[in-house]
């Protein structure tokens, strides 16, 4: 950073005054400090959403001499109100890792060789076209992520579904929130939360369902704790399978055996009905009851297929179904005492308390992920605690645009930007907006993510383009999928910013722009769309993933569908995309509005954001004349589902006697390909580990730091032990964070998934341990 002396003094003067003001006026915020900085020429500040999790914190990125040098929380962003977590504060350092990919590479005679990026793009287009011609349209695929910007995902869908005619479009969000989507769709007929983060300022009770918010959504957890401190009537319950930092800060920690959340949720409903805590006005007016298929399988075999069938039932049928879930019976299944089950039911049932339930991967990465989402909605619906300030069943996401790109743009095999490929009207709408023949859009979905990589292994897919994600670390039962990608006649293109195990299997590597090196939009967990400008230039030949796809599309002859120039493509793409969501149920803000604000919530109707959907006081899409309108379903009602407890795909037995649970830590984000390049974060947690219960460790004869071998039916890894660390699993369970490519825990995990959402369960499989 170049600083002349006078600029430094002026900056010091401003800093002193701001600090003094902070001491005299606690909480004083000076968001417009950026203006002074601009004037002085020291650091210019521009808004952006944070690059990491799905919370969607607003940040201000400080730039000096063309380099991003600082980050501070954006006080104008209602999500975080000026706060950041440790990842956010250090985020700009991820742009400048020493091994950043800045040039395209192509595999020639087995070696990766640097080539001009235009040559690499020519090769990609040529290979894609020839593969399609020789093996058919469904032999080519694109796999992206919830880190795709909205324009990235939009052009991917337009090219592959609209132009090439294949539904081979998937994203890693299938691995993190597909069950949330199917939960919403089956309970409400429309995706994404009805509430918003403002619920935290109104709720009296927070129940986290298998969700370590203190580490995974720390800014939101801080907001929850701040509410507890400020107000006297706030209680936090952590309901989980292991003790974490969230448990430590909660008022009460309740542990359950893996998979038995299904039984506990049903027992809570049983108690609510038994004690007549049902909100009958709400239920009679706004709820209908249903059941679906049972014994639905686990998807561990290739070509697994399942279709649920809804059948209407009465309230009495539902009540009868719950007879199997008395607290006393469920205590035996779950390990949760009947007293604790009754306590939680009483919190939900007390009409004087506002209750918000939070969940994320614990409920979604679950072989009955759709069901457990349904069951938590059941609880809220029975007591009518939904869609009002503070009463909120709230599904959080893990990626910055899992909602914005994957769920809203629809970068999943069955989806379109509006609706699904199976629906003729939705295909017609897409064809018209995309300017392609409607026959181009195939009405049949192809492969969900696990099956897509199985198809790559089998050879049904020959060409795959992977952008912004690292499946060679994240796929469960990893060895099969890595071996598949390495087979001779597979062609793998990877767009990324750093070398990863996925670039290791690539035939072409494209250097990608990262975060604020490009213009784009993300969409966070609370229906908030967040625009960011290109704040610094990408290094070398790196270009946005959007523009990479456009370059290939033009080479394939689709200039008409991709007519934009690099000067204006993001704004033009946005305005085209938002046509899909016109109307009060999902109206999006204009490009010009997004540029000005630190995020805008949809539906954005007549210049007004919608905080609580389905509530006639807040939601302009409500038309039934009642206080609530669950308009996603044809009967305008929310659906309560009778969903039973069914065991996990693989449970501990005499040979493999431990549960394996995997997840994240606060310092690292996902596979660590970015955060491990940030020295302060990498040094804080430089490698992965296995958390052991102290008694299990003693039995095994292992102390902290000693190596432990984790063995499953699929593979094994050897990894250092951590005992009495930040997390403590119960006896019979181990936990391993997946951020470290040196310890690929997914060699061990099982590729079983929820048959409805097709989302794998990374939280439960059986392993045995050996002292290494």
């Amino acid at each position, binding site marked *: 950073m170049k600083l002349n002396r006078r600029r430094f003094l002026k900056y*010091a003067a401003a800093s002193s005054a701001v600090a003094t003001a902070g001491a005299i006026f606690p909480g004083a915020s000076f968001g417009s400090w950026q203006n002074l900085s601009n004037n002085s020429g020291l650091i210019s500040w521009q808004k952006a959403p944070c690059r990491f999790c799905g919370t969607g914190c607003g940040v201000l990125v400080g730039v000096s001499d063309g380099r991003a040098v600082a980050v501070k929380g954006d006080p104008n962003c209602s999500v975080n109100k000026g706060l950041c977590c440790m990842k956010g504060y250090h985020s700009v350092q991820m742009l400048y890792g020493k091994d950043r990919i800045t040039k395209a590479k192509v595999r020639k005679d087995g070696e990766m060789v640097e080539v001009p990026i235009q040559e690499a793009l020519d090769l990609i287009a040529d290979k894609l076209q020839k593969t399609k011609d020789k093996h058919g349209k469904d032999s080519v695929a694109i796999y992206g992520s919830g880190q795709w910007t909205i324009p990235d995902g939009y052009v991917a869908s337009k090219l592959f579904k609209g132009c090439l005619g294949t539904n081979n479009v998937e994203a890693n969000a299938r691995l993190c929130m597909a069950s949330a989507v199917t939960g919403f769709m089956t309970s409400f007929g429309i995706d994404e939360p009805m509430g918003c983060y403002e619920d935290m300022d109104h709720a009296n009770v927070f129940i986290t369902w298998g969700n370590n918010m203190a580490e995974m959504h720390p800014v939101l957890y801080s907001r929850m704790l701040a509410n507890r401190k400020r107000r006297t009537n706030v209680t936090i319950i952590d309901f989980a399978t292991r003790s974490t930092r969230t448990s430590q800060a909660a008022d009460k920690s309740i542990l359950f055996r893996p998979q038995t959340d299904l039984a506990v949720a049903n027992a809570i409903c049983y108690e609510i009905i038994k004690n007549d805590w049902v909100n009958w006005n709400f239920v009679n007016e706004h709820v209908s009851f249903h059941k679906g298929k049972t014994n639905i399988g686990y998807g561990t075999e290739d070509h697994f297929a399942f279709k649920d069938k809804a059948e209407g039932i009465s309230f009495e049928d539902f009540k009868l179904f719950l007879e199997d879930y008395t607290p006393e019976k469920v205590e035996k299944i779950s390990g949760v005492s009947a007293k604790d089950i009754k306590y939680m039911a009483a919190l939900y049932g007390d009409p004087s308390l506002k209750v918000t339930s939070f969940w994320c991967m614990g409920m979604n990465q679950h072989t009955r992920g759709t069901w457990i989402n349904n069951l938590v909605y059941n609880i809220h619906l029975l007591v009518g605690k939904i869609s009002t300030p503070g009463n909120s069943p709230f599904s959080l996401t893990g990626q910055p645009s899992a909602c914005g790109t994957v769920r809203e743009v629809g970068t999943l095999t069955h989806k379109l930007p509006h609706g699904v490929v199976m629906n003729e009207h939705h295909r017609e709408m897409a064809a018209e907006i995309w300017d392609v023949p409607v026959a181009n859009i195939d009405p049949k979905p192809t492969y969900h993510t696990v099956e897509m990589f199985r198809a790559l292994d089998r050879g049904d897919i020959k060409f795959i383009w992977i952008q912004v994600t690292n499946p060679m670390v994240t796929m469960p039962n990893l060895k099969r999928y890595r071996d598949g990608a390495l087979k001779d006649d597979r062609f793998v293109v990877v767009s990324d910013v750093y070398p990863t195990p996925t670039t290791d299997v690539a035939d072409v590597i494209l250097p990608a722009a990262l975060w604020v090196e490009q213009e784009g939009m993300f969409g966070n967990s609370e229906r908030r769309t967040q625009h960011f400008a290109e704040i610094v230039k990408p290094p070398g030949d790196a270009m946005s993933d959007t523009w990479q796809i456009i370059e290939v599309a033009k080479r394939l002859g689709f200039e008409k569908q991709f007519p934009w120039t690099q000067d204006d493509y993001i704004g033009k793409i946005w305005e085209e995309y938002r046509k899909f969501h016109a109307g009060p149920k999902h109206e999006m803000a204009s490009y010009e509005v997004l540029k000005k604000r630190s995020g805008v919530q949809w539906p954005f109707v007549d210049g007004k954001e919608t905080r609580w959907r389905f509530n006639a006081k807040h939601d302009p899409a409500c038309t039934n004349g009642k206080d609530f309108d669950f308009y996603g379903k044809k009967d305008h009602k929310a659906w309560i589902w009778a969903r039973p407890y069914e065991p996990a795909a693989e449970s501990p037995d005499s040979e493999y006697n431990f549960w394996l649970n995997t997840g994240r830590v606060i310092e690292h984000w996902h596979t660590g390909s970015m955060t491990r390049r940030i020295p302060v974060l990498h040094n804080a947690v430089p490698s992965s580990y296995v958390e052991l219960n102290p008694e299990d460790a003693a039995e095994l004869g292992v102390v902290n730091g000693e190596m432990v071998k984790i063995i499953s039916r699929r593979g094994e890894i050897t990894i250092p032990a951590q005992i009495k660390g930040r997390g403590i699993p119960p006896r019979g369970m181990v936990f391993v964070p997946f951020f470290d490519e040196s310890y690929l825990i997914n060699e061990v995990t099982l590729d079983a998934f929820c048959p409805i959402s097709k989302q794998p369960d990374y939280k439960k499989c059986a392993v045995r341990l050996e002292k290494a």
Partner: protein
Amino acid sequence: MPIFSYLAIPTSGAKEILCASLATLPHCEIIPSDNQEVVVLVTDTPDEATEDELQKSLKNLQSLQSLSLAFGYDDKKKKGR
């Protein structure tokens, strides 16, 4: 060539007027608080005479209740003149 920073406290309800007034004065830059009745004022004047003129202008602002010095630097004083 003095550089000073102050906390400028407006008279009741006059923060916007104070900001507008300060913004029109030469050698002044302001950072209003988003949520409190306080404005950070940074002054950077080329010489003592200009500084004196600025001080007079500040004293004449009706919307300004008080100025609290937070930081001060003066080249001349540093050189012992």
